C-alpha cells in the first residue's frame, strides 16, 4: 500500500509544480508533467516485473511454446507506451495526435496478435473430429 501513497503523493506534487510554473513558463509545465509521469511509470514497472516472473513460471509449467507469451508481454509493453505518449499529447493540447498514437498502437497490437490467432485456430482444428 505504501507504493500507492508514494504514487499519489508524486502525482499531487507534480500537479502543484505544474500549476506554479504554468503562468511563469508554460512549456516547463509540460516538462514537469512528463517527468512526473515517467517517475510514476518507474514505480509501477517495479511491481510489474515480479508479476512477469510469476507468469514466466506458469508458462514454463504449462509447456505451451513461449513465443506466444513473449508476444503477449510485448503487447502489454506497447499498450504501456502508447498510453503514456497519448496522455502527454492530450496534455499539450493536441488530442488528435494522441488519438493517432493510440490508433497506431492498436494496429501494431493487432498485427502482433495474428500469430496467436492462427495458433488458436490450429488447436481448435485439431480438436474438431475429422
Amino acid at each position, binding site marked *: 500500500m505504501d507504493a500507492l501513497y508514494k504514487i499519489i503523493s508524486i502525482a499531487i506534487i507534480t500537479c502543484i509544480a505544474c500549476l506554479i510554473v504554468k503562468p*511563469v*513558463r508554460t512549456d516547463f509545465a509540460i516538462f514537469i508533467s512528463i*517527468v512526473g509521469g515517467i517517475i510514476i511509470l*518507474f514505480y509501477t514497472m517495479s511491481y510489474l516485473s515480479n508479476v512477469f516472473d510469476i507468469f514466466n513460471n506458469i508458462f514454463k509449467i504449462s509447456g505451451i511454446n513461449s513465443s506466444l507469451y513473449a508476444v503477449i508481454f*510485448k503487447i502489454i509493453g506497447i499498450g*504501456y507506451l502508447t498510453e503514456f505518449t497519448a496522455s502527454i499529447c492530450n496534455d499539450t493540447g493536441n488530442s488528435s495526435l494522441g488519438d493517432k498514437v493510440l490508433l497506431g498502437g492498436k494496429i*501494431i497490437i493487432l498485427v*502482433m496478435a495474428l500469430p496467436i490467432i492462427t495458433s488458436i485456430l490450429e488447436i481448435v482444428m485439431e480438436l474438431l473430429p475429422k
Partner: protein
Amino acid sequence: MDVEIIFKIAGIGILTAVIGQILKNSGKDDISTLATLAGVVIVLFMVIGMISELFTTIKSMFNFASVLPFI
C-alpha cells in the same frame, strides 16, 4: 529518481523566467532570449535523458529484444 527532479525542473523554469525578466528590463533583450532558450535546452536534455532511460527499462523488461521484422 524521485521528487527532487520535479523540483529541479520547476526551479530551472522559474530561474530562467526571472533571469529573462531581469535581462529584458536592463535593456539586453537578445541576451534574455538566449538565457530562456538555454534554460529550455537544459530541461529538454534532462527530460530526454529520463525518457531514454524509460525506454531502455521497458525494452529490457518486456524483452523487446527479439525484434519483429518490421517493429
